[in-house]
């Protein structure tokens, strides 16, 4: 049935008179491409702040973990979930959680989808992830989702804490997509661009953060990571 529909639709489209495809205009390269490493870091931080994200800096894994402690105390965190991506893996959050009386779940603690969802929707107060890329042009965090980096960790809890190694900061979106989609077969099945907290102004134009996704996004920019 669907094949018949497909053929009918395509036949109609192909039978239509053809007109010329207009040539593409030349456009100057985006300003962001001219930024050097320092500028990219600064611009990322600036854009993250404009989006309402809290931005911290850390030199290395140890300082990152100290920042985590600060944040956890300030927010009164007792239960969090951390993804198992390569950035978070450098922090040994299981250890950290034990020393700080914070229960640190991982996706594998949910033995199946339902158990995982219960943790991430009902139990935890924050989700901690690394990032695969960060895009300076707009303060955007880019996550590749796979079994070590589930989708819901950065989405369901009311707080998202993201660890961003500065060497993963790129100037524009194409810096990310050109790499990821160079080879279709190796392309990730799901990627997200996260730019700030969840937002709406649907009721009388009043801004409300944390509509469905996180209300706060806290970013720790890390100079040196062991990945």
């Amino acid at each position, binding site marked *: 049935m669907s094949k018949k529909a497909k053929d009918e*639709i395509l036949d109609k489209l192909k039978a239509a008179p053809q007109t010329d495809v207009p040539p593409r205009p030349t456009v100057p390269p985006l300003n962001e491409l001219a930024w050097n490493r320092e500028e990219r870091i600064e611009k990322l931080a600036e854009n993250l702040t404009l989006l309402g994200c809290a931005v911290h800096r850390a030199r290395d894994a140890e300082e990152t973990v100290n920042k985590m402690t600060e944040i956890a105390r300030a927010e009164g965190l007792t239960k969090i979930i951390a993804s198992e991506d390569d950035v978070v893996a450098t922090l040994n959050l299981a250890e950290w959680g034990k020393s700080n009386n914070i229960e640190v779940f991982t996706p594998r603690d949910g033995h199946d989808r339902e158990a995982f969802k219960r943790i991430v929707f009902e139990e935890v107060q924050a989700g901690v992830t690394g990032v695969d890329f960060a895009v300076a042009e707009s303060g955007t965090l880019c996550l590749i989702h796979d079994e070590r980096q589930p989708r819901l960790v950065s*989405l369901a809890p009311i707080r998202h804490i993201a660890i961003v190694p500065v060497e993963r900061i790129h100037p524009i979106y194409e810096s990310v997509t050109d790499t990821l*989609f160079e080879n279709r077969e190796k392309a990730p099945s799901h990627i997200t661009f996260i730019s700030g907290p*969840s937002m*709406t102004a649907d*009721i009388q134009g009043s801004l409300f953060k944390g509509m*469905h*996704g996180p209300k706060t996004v806290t970013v720790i920019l890390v100079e040196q990571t062991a990945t």
Partner: protein
Amino acid sequence: MKVKSEQFREVAIEELKTRHTRSHLDVIGLFISEMRRASMGTFPDPSAALELGRAIRAESIERLPELLEEFERNATANGAVVHWARDADEANALILRIAQERNVRLVTKGKSMVTEETGLNDVLIENGLEVFETDLGEFIIQLLGRPPFHIQGPALNIPVQEICDLFMEKGIMNEPTLDPVELGHAARVFLRNKFHHVDMAITGVNFAVAQTGTIINVENEGNIRLTKSSPRTQVSVMTLEKVVPTMQDAMHMLRLLCRNCTGQKIASYVSMDSGPNKGREVDGPRELFIVILDNGRSSFYRDPEVREILRCIRCGVCMLECPVYGKIGGYPYGWAYSGPMGQVLNPLMLGLERTQDLYRACTFCGGCKTACPAGIDHPQKFLYYRAKDVEGDPRYKGKRRPWTESSFMGIFTWVTKRRWRWNLGIKAARPFLNRHVEQGFIRGMKGPVEGWFKSRDFPAMAEKTFHDRMQERGSRESGEPSRS
């Protein structure tokens, strides 16, 4: 969705008198316009960026069949299952079957204009499924049973009191509140439960990338990401024209979409699906169905004059720029699509006869066309539809105009062919027009033009036309065509 385009005039008059409508439209207009100007200014050459967007969309539509085939090939290679549907019934039946085969009880939906076009929700609900719109504005209007007020804010005009009453009545919350943030929070808690337990996701598609077989969704709330992450089954519905050639093209259009829609550089969340999850993930869909819907588009694709309206990326900047929409909001347009983009699309979808006002209620200010990042010439389409009406073209369900009008136009154009006829026409019209003149102005006139005079005067026809004055002066003439 019920079609109410024939009530455009009455609904417009109502909306003009509605304080909430007017004040919200004014505020949205001002606020988003400013942000849009600023964010478009981040391009080194904003008008080149606009032109590139137009070229990408023009190419997308000119190469449509080829790009759709490429998209299907790549999406299928990614593991998605691609279905094609000729019309709304086929699409709805298909999606219902997918749901029933999997014993789906609960569905959450991301904002999708195409599923409003097909009336999908009603079909699913009739068959015993629970369906929840999850975009806050869509959620509210779903509960109210109302059409969208505005493309970016479907429920912006609804007063908090009404939302509070609604939420109390429907059990969304237990304690009344007029605080928009608390109301939003109540919706969050209620819908969170649905996201947690949802069986099947239904989303629209902002862009379908042919090169990689990827579908892209853009949002601020996170409801689409949640909908795509929680259940095992995802159905994403796209109409033919959503396809773009490459991922680089998609990124450029993404920038233009966000800037022109809400004035942001980018929305809070952009999610890209290249197939279902790879099998070992604990969340995300095991099955991804992509439904490619035609619903009449392949028919009007055949006419190169109207094909260009398929370039639309649903950014809504035309509504932001439109002086008419800016006063009346979305309700009067009477269907899923409003503002100038609705005015070009609805007549093709519903027929010219049922949408007379949609392509006539335009001042030709050109705001839409000037701003459109997809390169659509809306005013030119309106003229085309009016001409199709006059012809009574059956392909467009054109309705022949009243004989009084066509006679008048016949006489008018005949009279323009020769000055002596024009002069005669003036001599005949003048005493009639000027019969009630006060201090050089006409204050009122019954008949088709009487609406003008409610708040305006009109100058009397001059006793001596410009032509008369020139004749009297005996000004120099040269190169006259043959007199008659």
